[in-house]
C-alpha cells in the first residue's frame, strides 16, 4: 500500500517576499540553474531582457532567448510577494509556442527544487528525464530513498 498525492505548484521566492535580496534566496539559485539547463537544451542564451513585437527591449530579472523564439521569455519576481511570473510577446508568432519554454523552465525548477528538498531530508536522490515522442515535452521523474 502506498499513498499518491498530487500538488499544484507555483514558483514563489519566499525570501524575496519577506524582504531578503533576490540573490540571497535559495529559490533564485535554483531558478538560475533551471534557466541555464533549459538554455543548453534549446541552444539558447540566458540574459536580462526580452524583445517585444516591435523589437523594443524590456528588462527583466532573468530571460531566455532561443533560436526558435528569439524575442525571449522573461522572468519577473514581485518584490513584495516573491511570486514569479513569465513575460513574453508572441504576437504574430503562430508557429512558436513560448508556453512550451515556460513549461520547460517550470518543470526543471520544480524537479531541481524537489531534489534539493529531498536531499535536505536525508534522501538519496536520482532524477530521470525522458522526451515524449512527437516533440510533446518530456517526463521528469524524481526518486528519493531513505
Amino acid at each position, binding site marked *: 500500500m502506498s*499513498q*499518491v498525492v498530487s*500538488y499544484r505548484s507555483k*514558483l*514563489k521566492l519566499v525570501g524575496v517576499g519577506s524582504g531578503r535580496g533576490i540573490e540571497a534566496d535559495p529559490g533564485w539559485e535554483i531558478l538560475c540553474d533551471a534557466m541555464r539547463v533549459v538554455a543548453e537544451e534549446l541552444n539558447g542564451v540566458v540574459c536580462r531582457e526580452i524583445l517585444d513585437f516591435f523589437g523594443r527591449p524590456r528588462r527583466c530579472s532573468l530571460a531566455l532567448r532561443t533560436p526558435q523564439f528569439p524575442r525571449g521569455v522573461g522572468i519577473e519576481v514581485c518584490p513584495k510577494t516573491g511570486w514569479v511570473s513569465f513575460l513574453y510577446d508572441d504576437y504574430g508568432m503562430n508557429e512558436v509556442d513560448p508556453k512550451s519554454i515556460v513549461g520547460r523552465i517550470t518543470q526543471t525548477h520544480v524537479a531541481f527544487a524537489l531534489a534539493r528538498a529531498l536531499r535536505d531530508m536525508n534522501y538519496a536522490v536520482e532524477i530521470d528525464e525522458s522526451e515524449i515522442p512527437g516533440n510533446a515535452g518530456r517526463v521528469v521523474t524524481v526518486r528519493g530513498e*531513505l
Partner: protein
Amino acid sequence: MAKRIEAIVERDGTLNIEYIGFHGPDCRSEGISLEKALSHYGVDASELSHRLKSEEEVELEIGEGGAKGSSERDAGYV
C-alpha cells in the same frame, strides 16, 4: 521496508508524488515537511488530491512495467 518517494513532475509544474512505505500519519507529516522544504527552494505546493494506492494497483504496475498515467492541468501562473 525502505521508505521511498517517487515524483513525476509535469510540464505545468504539477507534482504527482507517491509515498511508498509510509503508514497513516507518517505520510501526512512527511508531506508537510516536503512542502516546507520545497517552499525554501521557490516552490509553493498546494495539495490537489490524495488517495491510497491499493496492493492490486501496485501489482498491476509491476506486471505492466511500472507504467503510470498523467493528466493536464491549467498552468495558472503565466
